[in-house]
């Protein structure tokens, strides 16, 4: 298997537990042990920002549970709400992993179709979105493996995307990547850097790429990534560091 070969080559850590290789519907069934709860919003050891984040997350979890229950009862409106809640994140994950807009859209749609079909196997013990991300990352890995076996290569198409824009946190003005680079040639330079970063990201080993996308692009917590990938904490952190070093070395010529 290409995936396991890649993993063997890039991961010399012998103590690391094997990551799931076979991806089918069984892989999307929830694990038996319930997912550990995140920090409580009223935990006094948290900073105000962390407390706010925890409260937001708890609210999101409650909302997801309600929607999943309704979906299990056959309410298609609940499915629509779930899709609309997570479509940007799943599509973003796919786009950063595959670097092809059409392919990413198809894959993201496939993920939600699997969710619709397999929702009966979701027992509601873990967070819905880690389950969703697990399906997405498995689907993505399978696709990359398939494309690799067919020697498929497509160029990075990010520069053409009209949607490659960053909505401001307050929902106000749209901020694009280029505006983060100061100077009169911000637009051109920003676009160029975005394409370079995406291209070098796409050149990384898929497991490294997944960790960087989950942690650094999408900002997921370590605990969530552990739930999604099945890695142990130490393994995750060391692999993430190696992935970052690899990307830094690839980007070094462009950062000077």
């Amino acid at each position, binding site marked *: 298997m290409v995936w396991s070969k890649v993993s063997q080559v890039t991961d*010399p*850590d*012998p103590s690391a537990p094997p990551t799931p290789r076979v991806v089918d519907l069984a892989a999307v069934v929830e694990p038996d042990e319930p997912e550990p709860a995140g920090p409580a919003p009223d935990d006094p050891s948290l900073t105000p920002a962390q407390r706010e984040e925890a409260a937001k997350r708890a609210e999101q979890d409650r909302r997801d549970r309600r929607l999943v229950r309704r979906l299990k009862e056959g309410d*298609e409106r609940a499915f*629509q709400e779930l*899709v*609309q809640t997570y*479509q*940007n994140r*799943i*599509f*973003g994950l796919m*786009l*950063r992993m595959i670097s092809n807009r059409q392919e990413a*859209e198809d894959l*993201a*749609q496939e993920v*939600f*179709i699997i969710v*619709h079909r397999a929702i009966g196997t979701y027992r509601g013990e873990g967070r819905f979105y880690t389950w969703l991300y697990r399906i997405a990352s498995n689907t993505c890995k399978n696709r990359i493996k398939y494309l690799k076996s067919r020697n498929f290569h497509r160029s990075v198409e990010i520069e053409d*995307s009209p*949607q*490659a*824009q*960053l*909505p401001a946190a307050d929902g106000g003005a749209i901020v*694009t*990547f280029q505006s*983060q680079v100061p100077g009169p040639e911000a637009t051109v330079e920003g676009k160029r*850097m*975005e394409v370079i*970063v*995406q291209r070098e*990201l796409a050149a990384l080993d898929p497991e490294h790429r997944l960790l*960087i996308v989950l*942690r*650094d*692009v999408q*900002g997921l917590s*370590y605990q969530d990534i552990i739930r999604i990938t099945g890695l142990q*904490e*130490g393994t995750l*952190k*060391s*692999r*993430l*560091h*190696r992935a*970052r*070093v*690899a*990307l*830094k070395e690839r*980007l*070094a010529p462009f*950062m000077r």
Partner: protein
Amino acid sequence: MRSNLVTCLALPLALPRTPYPPMSAMAEESPTEADALMSAYLDEQLAPEEAAKVEKLLAESPEARAELSGLQNMLKLVKGLPEVVAPPDFYEKVARKIRRRRLFSMEILWMLILPFQVLSVVLILVVAALYMLLHLDNDPSVKLEKDPTVQVPPAEVPPVASASTPPRP
């Protein structure tokens, strides 16, 4: 893939945990621990005392500081990638695909069972027809009554039948 930073961090951090480790074991384990520590440091996930320890080590190594700075710059670039937005008709496409697959699977099922249904109906009809034909031939009680007004040609009248006919008064 060992960076200067990791090499710098590996030895002092590994020593307290494994007082007399064999050299080969240290070579295998220390970088991993240091890698993990660096990840946590970059993500500000270390406890204050651990972070202070890393900072002390960084202060002693300009190479490690340079590498850390490179990683931070790289992270700034990656974190600055724009969020992507799914197409506005994303849900409609998903719903359409689900409907199409559902219909397709029903259609396939229907296409698969249709020939068997037709065959079984034809078979039942054939068996019923054969049974009726055989039954009619063998059972005298169900023979059709003959029309008495129809003249039967004399040659065909059986002699036994005419002899047994009683004379009319």
